[in-house]
């Protein structure tokens, strides 16, 4: 199907589906309950000055669009299996390619010890595992300094396993832990791979081991959660370099086999969440350190990203919720130990969410962004989609509707 026709088709489907699909499709097989759940969302973005997320947003763009469908069942009291398919599209990212989002076999021996294996959503901070499910949130776009749409593939899921559990601490609340290890890979339509195309690099594979853990304390103060997470990554990428100035690191022709690999790559995150009645306050801080050999050994690149946000939401009534966040990204980057100019993106956001029904919501959100990060790394702004250069300020309107069952 032609790309534009496909966009129109999916947009039409997603706007009419809420009425058709609000029922829950649960059924029984061999005496076991099988649950089926799904969601879909359709966005519209209109920005000033710069195009955002590789889409033509300065002229108004219908996206992001995404959808997921899962099936799960309990085989015994303690053993559960399930899987979810997911697709998304925004600009040049995702491109409607259905992917296995997760497929898990989960055995819980005790409340304090369980094992999940398969393709598992990564528990890391407040929203890494649910960042695609914005229908759950007040915001149409989560704070992109930490939950960047175009970097989701980096850590959103791993093929491997988790050890997890929850331990009561009597008067001190409870501790929940998750330890994970497995392989994570970027899809061919991820932000990093797209950003490399502008440098003449066609990366066909980018994956590697990730391992880490998340520890969260449900404190004795009602509604207060505090946590910390740490992850090491060992990615390797390979592909081809075609004639371009960037590829001259390889040789005079600037053509040949391209590879890159980690030297040291870790992420640490600290977070807190406070809920009182209809009010919720979230805050997270992430430091990401990436030190990689790039251009087939021709260069050493490092990235030291410091990002944080604070978000507040308030549910006014059963239909209406409002929220605001301040999201801050600051990045230091070097190539062969030469510093690039510092880069930042500061995003101030106001949002309104209207629940039209229990299974359908609409959000309207204003972003006021200052800065555009490094265009060599995916932070929403790409040189390929901004051929005339980037301006410092980006006002952005996002409207997004979602249904789920």
């Amino acid at each position, binding site marked *: 199907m032609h790309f534009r026709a496909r966009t129109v088709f999916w947009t039409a489907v997603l706007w009419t589906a809420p009425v058709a699909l609000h029922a829950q499709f649960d059924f029984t097989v061999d005496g076991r309950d099988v649950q089926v*759940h799904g969601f879909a969302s359709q966005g519209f973005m209109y920005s000033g000055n710069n195009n955002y997320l590789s889409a033509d947003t300065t002229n108004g763009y219908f996206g992001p669009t995404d959808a997921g469908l899962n099936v*799960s069942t309990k085989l015994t*009291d*303690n053993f559960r299996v399930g899987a979810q398919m997911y697709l998304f599209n925004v600009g040049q990212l995702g491109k409607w390619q259905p992917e296995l989002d*997760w497929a898990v076999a989960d055995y819980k021996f005790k409340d304090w010890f369980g094992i999940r294996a398969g393709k598992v959503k990564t528990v890391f901070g407040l929203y890494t*595992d649910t960042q695609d499910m914005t229908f759950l949130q007040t915001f149409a776009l989560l704070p992109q300094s930490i939950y960047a749409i175009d970097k989701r593939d980096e850590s959103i899921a791993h093929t491997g396993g988790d050890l997890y559990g929850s331990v009561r601490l009597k008067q001190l609340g*409870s501790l929940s832990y998750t330890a994970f290890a497995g392989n994570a890979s970027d899809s061919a339509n991820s932000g990093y791979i797209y950003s490399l195309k502008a440098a003449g690099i066609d990366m066909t594979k980018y994956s590697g081991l990730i391992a880490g853990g998340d520890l969260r304390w449900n404190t004795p103060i009602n509604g207060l959660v505090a946590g910390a997470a740490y992850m090491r990554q060992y990615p390797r990428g390979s592909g081809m370099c075609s004639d371009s100035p960037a590829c001259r690191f390889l040789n005079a022709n600037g053509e040949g086999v391209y590879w890159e690999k980690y030297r040291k790559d870790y992420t640490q995150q600290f977070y807190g969440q406070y809920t009182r009645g209809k009010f919720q306050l979230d805050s997270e801080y992430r430091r990401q350190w990436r030190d990689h050999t790039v251009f087939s050994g021709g260069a050493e690149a490092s990235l030291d990203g410091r990002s944080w946000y604070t978000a507040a939401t308030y549910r006014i009534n059963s239909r209406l919720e409002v929220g605001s966040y301040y999201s801050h990204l600051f990045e230091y980057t070097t190539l062969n130990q030469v510093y690039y100019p510092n880069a930042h993106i500061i995003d101030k956001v106001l949002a309104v969410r209207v629940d039209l029904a229990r299974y359908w919501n609409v959000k309207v959100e204003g972003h006021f962004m200052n800065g555009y990060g490094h265009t060599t790394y995916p932070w929403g702004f790409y040189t390929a989609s901004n051929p005339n250069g980037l301006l410092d300020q980006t006002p952005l309107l996002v409207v997004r509707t979602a249904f789920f069952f």
Partner: protein
Amino acid sequence: MLKKPNSLLFALLAICSAVSAFAGDIKVIANASVGASSVSADELKGVFLATKTSLSDGSHVEPVLEKDGPTHEAFLKAFVGKTDSALATYYRSLVFTGKASMPKTTASDADMVAYVAKTKGAIGYVSAGADTSGVKTLDVK
């Protein structure tokens, strides 16, 4: 100077009384397969937030929720600490990441009692005046 602490004390007492009144208006019920005769408020919270799947006696339990209504609201306020919409969001975040199943919901006290009576390990709640024949009532400690 003395008025402020007194006002604060009365306000706290009023809040505590309101919560107790809500809790007192509710009966926690369970299927006959559940061995325990009582449950702590902490355990209840864990069960209804899907972090606990067994009680202190080792009985496996499955939470059952009423779809809406005053009993449902009172139960959430007294024992779970989340509003109905926050709890729905919480469960969906588990379901859509493969970490739990959506709990069964029932439309009324009578439906709740009927479902709990026939479902091994089911644990739910009804208003204090509901007929709970066929299920056991758990004391909340």
